């Protein structure tokens, strides 16, 4: 992948270690830090989550309310957590970024949401999508590798099909992106 060429670029903004420390540990450390920062503001537009962090006590769940037996709650919850932990995490790379990220496709309901999430994560903007022309107006193009190993443009297939076939995401930049038929 092209980003591998960028590993040694000094202009990594997230350098935490002192000069001389290994790239590996730096990356891990900064990744951890970023993750902990980022997870507090998930890309799913979620005012609720923000509320939960600063919420007044009344938002906390009251004991025994609503009146559902724990047996029933547990039965539904085991299913929920099973789904949550399995998730559908795919790697996301962006040309020019030093390291990969991961997103859980299961938490999004459609393309606009996941694209917004990627935009927030990597600080870029996608262009406008059209079936004929792909993404218009930006040098960044979201692509994904499907089950067959082919690189596809994000947005071409129905959402469900995308979620089930996407193996990894890559935000292409510049000249390479043009190869997929978009107009810059």
């Amino acid at each position, binding site marked *: 992948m092209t980003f591998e060429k960028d590993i040694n670029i000094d202009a990594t903004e997230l350098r935490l270690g002192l000069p001389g420390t290994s790239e590996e540990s730096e990356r891990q450390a900064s990744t951890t830090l970023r993750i902990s920062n980022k997870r507090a503001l998930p890309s799913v537009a979620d005012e609720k989550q923000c509320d939960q962090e600063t919420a007044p006590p009344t938002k906390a*769940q009251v*004991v*025994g*309310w609503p*009146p559902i037996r724990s047996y029933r709650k547990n039965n539904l919850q085991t299913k929920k957590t099973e789904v949550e932990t399995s998730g559908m995490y795919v790697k996301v790379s962006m040309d020019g970024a030093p390291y990969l990220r991961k997103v859980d496709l299961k938490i999004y309901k459609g393309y606009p949401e996941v694209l917004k999430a990627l935009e927030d994560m990597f600080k870029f903007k996608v262009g406008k999508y059209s079936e004929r022309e792909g993404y218009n107006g930006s040098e960044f193009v979201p692509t994904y590798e499907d089950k067959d190993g082919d690189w596809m443009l994000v947005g071409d297939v129905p959402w469900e099909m995308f979620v089930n076939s996407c193996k990894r995401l890559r935000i292409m930049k510049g000249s390479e992106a043009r190869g997929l038929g978009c107009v810059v």
Partner: protein
Amino acid sequence: MSEDDERQQSPPSDLEFVSNKARNCNATGSGSGHPEFQSAYPDQVLENVLENVLHFLTSKRDRNAASLVCKSWYRVEALTRSELFIGNCYAVSPARATARFTRVRALQLKGKPRFADFNLMPPDWGAHFNPWALAMAKAYPWLEKVHLKRMTVTDDDLATLAELLLGFKELVLVCCDGFGTSGLAIFVNKCRQLKVLDLIESEVSDDETDWISCFPEGESQLESLIFDCVECHINFEALERLVANSPSLKKLRLNRYVSIGQLYRLMIRAPQLTHLGTGSFSPSEIAGQGDQEPDYVNAFAACKSLVCLSGFREIIPDYLPAIYPVCANLTSLNFSYANITAEQLKPIISKCHKLQVFWVLDSICDEGLQAVAATCKELRELRVFPVDPREDGDGPVSEVGLQAISEGCRKLQSILYFCQRMTNAAVIAMSKNCPDLVVFRLCIMGRHRADPVTGEPMDDGFGAIVMNCKKLTRLAVSGLLTDKAFDYIGQHGKLVRTLSVAFAGDSDMGLKYVLEGCPQLQKLEIRDSPFGDAALRSGLHHYYNMRFLWMSSCRLTPNGCQEIARAMPRLVVEVIRSADEEEMDDAVEILYMYRSLEGPRTDLPKFVTIL
């Protein structure tokens, strides 16, 4: 399905002062049931006749009435009562019960109050079956049936039942706990005549004992095996053998560890089933994708007597079409563990013309309920449970669904409906469209939530229910409610026997209206409502007629409760604290009081004080 079944209640056998005195004066007692030869001849004939006649009396209410006629009737009724129902295990002791009733074949006992289900009470409060088990084993060696609800049953108790009761046939445990698979193993092994083993919403600990293999070999008389709440793997081969050896098996409810492939194998061995709980209704992980899928449709089609379907614990909706062949005959369908959409429900429900009981998750949304209303004209009971049981969760069902049901299902008798929003208009509509309602339980999950359209409290909605539904005996209220709602209930809810209140009311008047206005009230459970000692006092005239009163997080003080305890010697007044709290002098966290012939119980945990 027996989650909080509505039961015919009346002053049950746990408290009868007149009879009690009669018994004390009656020196001969009822011994082993032989006629008393010291009576004069004509009296003897009368008693024999009476005995024969009373054998036909089955209703508890009728029997209680009969026992009050005179000493003679009391004695004979006691001899002929074969089914003993005790609504509160602490209202009467095993000794007293076995002394009065000597020929009991079936025992039904209820223990903890219902609010204990919602973790409002610390565990180990009581309701131990053990003293009853021992007493039964001694007094009724011929005992055949035991039906327990919200009791703590130990493995030893199960062993007692199995070993000492030779003809034991039927065990039903609803919302019980305290035992495990090793207890079950002993029980099923020793009970050679077992016909019914129903474990319903009970907590069974996994002792890693293969209890299914412990059923005796050879032909079994098993008619009902319900174990959908047992959260552990079972030996499927042993189960398959058991089902194959049980030609009388009519009811089988599997747990979620049984895959759909295994279900198939059982179904083809038991096409005579009338009640089926499908287990997980999804393939096991081991099954390869290339494996030939069995013909599930055929298996269901072969079950021509199937009327009650439940399970679907880990449903893969793709398999739902398999049940099409049985839909037309179904009278009861429980989808309350199946997270399915309206679209997935529609093809099924549109075939269920005979459906009378339907339990479902709100994942079907208002649209799904509309589909139910369009087809299920015979619906008697509907329960809609929330997928997301939180106060501020998504609300896929609303007044729209309730309105639709009220218009489509005119014969509705019982409803339990969880939602995030509800309007007075919809509730009023239901009160008018469904005059046969006996049970109305509405749970608006957001506390103190007003009618979102008018901004008004929900008083008028519930008021309409008690006014228009003349047969109503059970009511659960929610949403923003003022004292006015309780005024309506007191004025019009003349048949109400069970009332559940949470986060409602403004003042003592609320509770007063109910205690003064509802003569049939037997079970009152209240939480987090502003009712205090004065309100409590207003029920003094009625507490002996009630099975229990529960009040938690209200405005009661120890003095107020003490006053009640002093005024009513036959009432047991329990003050319960959260286990980790120290004694608080000025507030009563939980009050649980009930009539009893026995006085304070002897098995009190540390966090309970009896005033």
